[in-house]
């Protein structure tokens, strides 16, 4: 019996080495977990409606995806990196060093970031300044820069509900955190005058993003499902979610307004709702004529049928890009991205 098993093992090892030569016929995609649901919706429809196999979509984070994209050219590297933040110069340099020259940047639309609390709690009408006052390490009180003294929302502004401050915000490894820092904390810091006070005291703007460490602001390193579980367990908590995640859980979450604007696909598209960011994917041009279906997939993704305002992506919560036609033309022409500005 052992003899047979032994020869099986040898056969398997032989197969492992000979099979390498076989060509890959499935598109390989990796990257942002925010883009993942959209990419999988498109991949599914692409597989259904074309003769090409359904692409394989991995998650793992925007940075990890871009790093994989830049590993080199060849069938055992990925074709597309999904990213919820723009590619960095370091990524481009890394790509160039590994022989990945032409990369296409495709903007698929915008993603809203919403602030939501448990459905049974009160309504919240936030401003970025409120969030800065609630979470920053140092805030301006009575004209002086002090350690954050606020314990409840109504101490910050009398018309906010009398509820203890507790926030579940995305951890630093998330692309969402950058947007939160920039569009909420820094914007709020300037709005409530703390930024000026910091500058007057000789500090830098990034001190606006320093958060209090007394347990009121909780970093969530997992996904939105974890944030939801935390809000469910702590009815006072307010979580930061993606718009599409909120739209799938409207029976459990009550969304807060920002500057008086209710977040929705429409208000984000019109630019009224301030906290949003563009979503991208990056295509390795060298693979376009090698991997079957890659060009078709890219064109299918940005087609009006998928990414348009009435398409399934918008129905799931992606804010359609008003300049989609431009992207479609660029994708057809395979225009590689230029230098970052």
């Amino acid at each position: 019996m052992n003899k047979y098993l032994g020869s099986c093992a040898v056969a398997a090892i032989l197969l492992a080495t000979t099979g390498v030569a076989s060509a890959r016929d499935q598109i390989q995609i990796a990257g942002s977990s925010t883009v993942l649901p959209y990419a999988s919706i498109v991949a599914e429809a692409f597989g259904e409606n074309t003769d090409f196999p359904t692409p394989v979509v991995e998650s793992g984070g925007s940075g990890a995806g871009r790093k994989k994209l830049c590993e080199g050219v060849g069938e055992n590297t990925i074709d597309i990196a999904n990213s919820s933040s723009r590619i960095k110069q370091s990524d481009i340099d890394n790509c160039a060093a590994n022989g990945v020259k032409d990369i296409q940047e495709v903007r698929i639309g915008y993603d809203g970031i919403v602030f939501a609390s448990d459905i049974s709690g009160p309504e919240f009408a936030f401003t970025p300044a409120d969030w800065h006052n609630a979470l920053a390490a140092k805030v301006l009180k009575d004209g002086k820069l002090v350690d954050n003294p606020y314990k409840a929302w109504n101490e910050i502004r009398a018309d906010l509900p009398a509820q203890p401050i507790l926030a579940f915000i995305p951890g630093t490894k998330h692309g969402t955190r950058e947007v939160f820092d920039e569009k909420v904390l820094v914007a709020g810091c300037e709005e409530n005058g703390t930024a000026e006070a910091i500058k007057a005291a000789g500090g830098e703007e990034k001190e606006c993003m320093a958060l209090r460490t007394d347990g009121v602001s909780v970093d969530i390193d997992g996904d939105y499902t974890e944030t939801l579980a935390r809000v469910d367990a702590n009815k006072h908590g307010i979580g930061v979610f993606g718009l599409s995640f909120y739209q799938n859980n409207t029976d459990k979450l009550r969304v807060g307004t920002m500057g008086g604007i209710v977040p929705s696909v429409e208000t984000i598209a019109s630019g009224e709702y301030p906290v949003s960011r563009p979503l991208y994917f990056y295509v390795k041009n060298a693979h376009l004529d090698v991997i079957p279906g890659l060009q078709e997939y890219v064109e299918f993704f940005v087609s009006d049928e998928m990414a348009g305002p009435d398409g399934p992506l918008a129905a799931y919560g992606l804010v359609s890009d008003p300049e989609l036609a431009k992207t479609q033309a660029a994708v057809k022409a395979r225009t590689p991205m230029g230098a970052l500005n």
Partner: protein
Amino acid sequence: MTVSVAGKAANDIQTKSILAPDARTRRRNAAEARFRLWGKLAVALGVLALVGLLLSILSNGLSSFQQTYIALDVYLDPAKLDKDGNRDPASIAKVSTFGYAPVIEKALSEAIAAKGIVVDGLSIKAAAELISKEAPASLRNFVIANPSKIGETVSFNLLASGRIDGYYKGRVTMESAALDRNTSPEQLRLADKLKEAGLLATRFNWDFFTAPDASDTRPEAAGLGVAILGSAYMMLIVLVLSLPLGVAASIYLEEFAPQNRFTDLVEVNIANLAAVPSIVFGILGLAVFINFAGLPQSAPIVGGLVLTLMTLPTIIIATRAALKAVPPSIRDAALGVGASKMQSIFHHVLPLAMPGILTGTIIGLAQALGETAPLLLIGMVAFVREFPGAPPQGFFDPASALPVQVYNWTQRGDPAFVERASGAIIVLLVFLVLMNLIAIILRRRFERRW
């Protein structure tokens, strides 16, 4: 002659009955009673945790084995589905799934009208949301496979959407539907009326075991097919590679290898390997099998090779213990009648050690079946909808795995995926229990004691 017993203790012994325990005995008995209590508490806590875990998984997941379907007679309108009118597969394939949605919508509105169902405040577009977004795809596949049916009325069993399905499983209520953006109480009322009319039914969900994963917009269509196949391929590779390698290594180390520094070092390292965190094997797999050997990403072959490395030490340790347990008299007897060393091992020692070896192998396999961490790094934690081909070529196609599917589903936004994830856990647990049962049966039936 008197026995001289010195001290107070002696007096005690003489004056007290042996039936009445003295202070020291009482203390010792109390210590024992306390220890027993701690033991019972520990067992109770363990059992409680297990029961709690199982209850939560079962209560969340059992419903995934049921699915709600809507039976519809759909008129396959040639004007919409075959615009050229020549039944040419190529021109039929040009109609995308978006073209099939109106056909289903029309069929549903006709069915509602035929049954005389009226629900106030429900547009036909909202009514069509009762049917899964998977339905146009299954209709299109049917039409492409049977072009001759165009122009006929065919009955289909279409999946109901995730929210409607959730309503019949208690996940969605009228109250939650009123707040829910993806459904409305009117839709639930229509579903109830369809059920009364016999068009809507909830029954056993075979597709859960055979269908591939589905995207976030159609949790009702998501299944474990690709994951089960991927896991099966990996287990096959692990079995075929690790059993002969592990058994050969342990026979050599146990029976032939000289006792010296070098073999000591090998032994210590094997024992250490068994304790290495599995993610380390994933990093190794990425570096060696994908980046160096150029094997494809997300493929069961790479997953199988990585898990083989992880399982080998377990198998070697179990096999060596099994070989050691065979009494030397068996070897001596074989050698005594003139067998060579190799004959004595392969004809006598190995068959007797086989139950132990198989038990170790199955436990190693069960461990590998539940492993996710190493797969994370080799690209198997992914959205895979395409079934891998038949082996051996299929080993190189992308596939998913059972624990990976659980991990993926817990991250999805739609609450219906929570049920699917728990259902996948149940399937995984059933496989693990089955494997352990086989191990126990093998041990009971074939083990010999001396």
